[in-house]
């Protein structure tokens, strides 16, 4: 361990060991660069420690219980008991396995790992301060730097994450007892994923959302099955409201969350729930806890970026070119800090590009299609353009659709809500985009991502033999439907 101020040199300094930074580090190591990866908290970043992995672990585990509890139709009678502390232990075990794996992979690829907080001191040096007792700081000289400091949850006025009943997603994923009731502020994907988890754990969940529907940005037809399922789970929604403050209840039995109606929404009657006889009135919701999930913001303000001359835009994101370069030629930015979409695989892909560009390879961010998945019940997955995006981009489109209720495989799993939709260019049939809501949407989207990347046409997808009985046949059928000759659904 390095104590005091020492200066060491490195070819590539990578700041932040989330999926963007550690992937950049491993790839740079593979390319024989001398790499130092600095992480202030935990290898794997938000994704492995407090995001993708823990959330998906709890989603899957609560689904196992939920599916068994609701399988009477299938002749299965079960009344599973959930021990959340045990579930969280298991989840923590999964996280440990993956984060220690990341550490090992870094070492095996000759990445120097350094624990500490990095700040820039000038264009070619950074200071790394170690937080442990007796640990000082050190100065690192670098040829290239890769900023991969990620993002953090946005706080809203009067809801501080330090205060006990107020949770961010990270704290919610670490609870070891099930709250009786929970208010979720924000119906984006994180809010909706966690709302389902808690509802399946038996919590009474109410979601407050400023806009008039869940999952802003997704097409209505994709949201419909998710909203329906959420209703079935007993999740309540208050659209058109914004959380204003919370206070302990006088009876000491929890908190009250207050929410004000959004002017516009109330005015134009956009949200049925918001106007129903109480226009302009505030809501008071009693609950045990409140989870604030209103979005994430880049971690770009704690790095002394100015010392390196690196600029951010007005939202705090570091803008980059197709080589993942910032305005400073030898400094790169990847992952959430480099902008939307704030998704792990987007960060990993950028991390690989940054490493390859530094190694002198002709890499570039030139994906035709970036997938996105929402792990709600059912899942939503999209890749490429939606129909309206394609049209805005000047394409004449043809659309094919296949409902899972016509899929033999879906019926045999008892999960047949949703559909596969494929958008293609009309004249030559090139696949432009796809969206799926339903069972295994997250996995099924992969084939369509490959189709888009390879410039495949509807005919290519339709004439590839898909195994029976699988959900992936629905992808083929959607393509056939667009061509006018689906077998298991009517065309036209």
């Amino acid at each position, binding site marked *: 361990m390095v104590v005091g101020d020492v200066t060491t040199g490195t070819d590539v300094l990578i700041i932040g060991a989330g999926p963007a930074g550690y992937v950049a580090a491993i790839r740079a190591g593979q390319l024989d660069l001398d790499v130092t990866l600095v992480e202030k908290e935990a290898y794997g970043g938000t994704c492995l420690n407090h995001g993708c992995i823990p959330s998906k672990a709890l989603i899957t585990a609560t689904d196992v219980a939920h599916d068994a509890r609701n399988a009477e139709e299938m002749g299965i009678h079960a009344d599973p008991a959930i021990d959340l502390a045990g579930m969280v232990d298991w989840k923590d075990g999964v996280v440990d396995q993956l984060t220690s794996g990341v550490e090992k992979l870094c070492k095996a690829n000759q990445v120097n790992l350094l624990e500490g907080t990095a700040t820039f001191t000038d264009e070619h040096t950074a200071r790394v301060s170690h937080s442990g007792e007796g640990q000082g700081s050190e100065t690192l000289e670098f040829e290239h730097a890769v900023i991969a400091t990620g993002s953090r949850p946005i706080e809203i006025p009067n809801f501080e994450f330090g205060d006990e009943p107020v949770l961010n997603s990270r704290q919610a994923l670490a609870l070891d007892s099930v709250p009786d009731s929970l208010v979720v502020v924000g119906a984006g994907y994180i809010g909706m994923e966690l709302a389902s988890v808690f509802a399946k754990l038996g919590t009474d969940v109410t979601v407050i959302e400023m806009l008039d529907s869940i999952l802003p940005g997704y097409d209505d037809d994709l949201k419909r099955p998710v909203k329906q399922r959420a209703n079935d789970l007993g999740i309540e929604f208050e659209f058109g409201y914004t959380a204003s403050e919370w206070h302990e209840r006088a009876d000491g039995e929890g908190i009250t969350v207050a929410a004000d109606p959004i002017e516009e929404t109330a005015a134009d009657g956009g949200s049925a729930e918001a106007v129903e006889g109480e226009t302009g009135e505030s809501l008071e919701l009693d609950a045990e806890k409140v989870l604030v999930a209103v979005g994430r913001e880049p971690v770009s303000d704690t790095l002394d970026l100015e010392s390196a001359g690196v600029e951010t835009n007005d939202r705090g994101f570091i803008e980059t070119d197709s080589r993942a370069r910032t305005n400073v030629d030898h400094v790169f930015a990847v992952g959430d800090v480099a902008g939307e979409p704030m998704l792990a695989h987007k960060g990993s892909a950028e991390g690989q590009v940054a490493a390859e560009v530094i190694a002198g390879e002709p890499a570039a961010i030139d994906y035709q299609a970036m997938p996105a998945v929402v792990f709600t019940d059912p899942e939503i997955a999209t890749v490429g353009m939606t129909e309206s995006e394609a049209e805005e981009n000047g394409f004449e489109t043809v*659309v094919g659709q296949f*409902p899972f209720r016509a*899929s033999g495989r879906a019926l045999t799993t008892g999960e047949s809500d949703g559909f596969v939709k494929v958008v293609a260019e009309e004249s030559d*049939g090139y696949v432009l985009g796809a969206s799926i809501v339903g069972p295994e949407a997250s996995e099924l989207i992969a084939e369509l991502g490959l189709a888009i990347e390879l410039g495949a*046409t509807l*005919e290519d997808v339709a004439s590839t033999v898909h195994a029976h009985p699988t959900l992936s046949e629905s992808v083929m059928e959607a393509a056939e439907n667009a061509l*006018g000759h689906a077998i*298991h*659904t009517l065309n*036209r």
Partner: protein
Amino acid sequence: DAEETATPQDRVFAPPRVRRMAREEGIDLLSLEGSGPGGRITAADVQAAASGGPVGGGTQRQESTETAAESAATTGDSSETGAAAVETEGRTEPGSGAE
């Protein structure tokens, strides 16, 4: 970049749409040199062979009966009413017939 260790002669690397085009044109794909990545045979290669020369604008591509169906599907699906139509058709799909 065609090496000596070339791929076995009877294996064609071409997407299904290109294979069908070749059948339509009566062209043996094994006789073509691919111009795509890694020597993959492309639609343009087949068109070139079919017209006995270099490819033109690519608009001569023969569509089979699918053309009509495609345009029908487009008009049906690109509007709100198209979506409604999909719903209605659903009644004759497997899975929707159970009482």
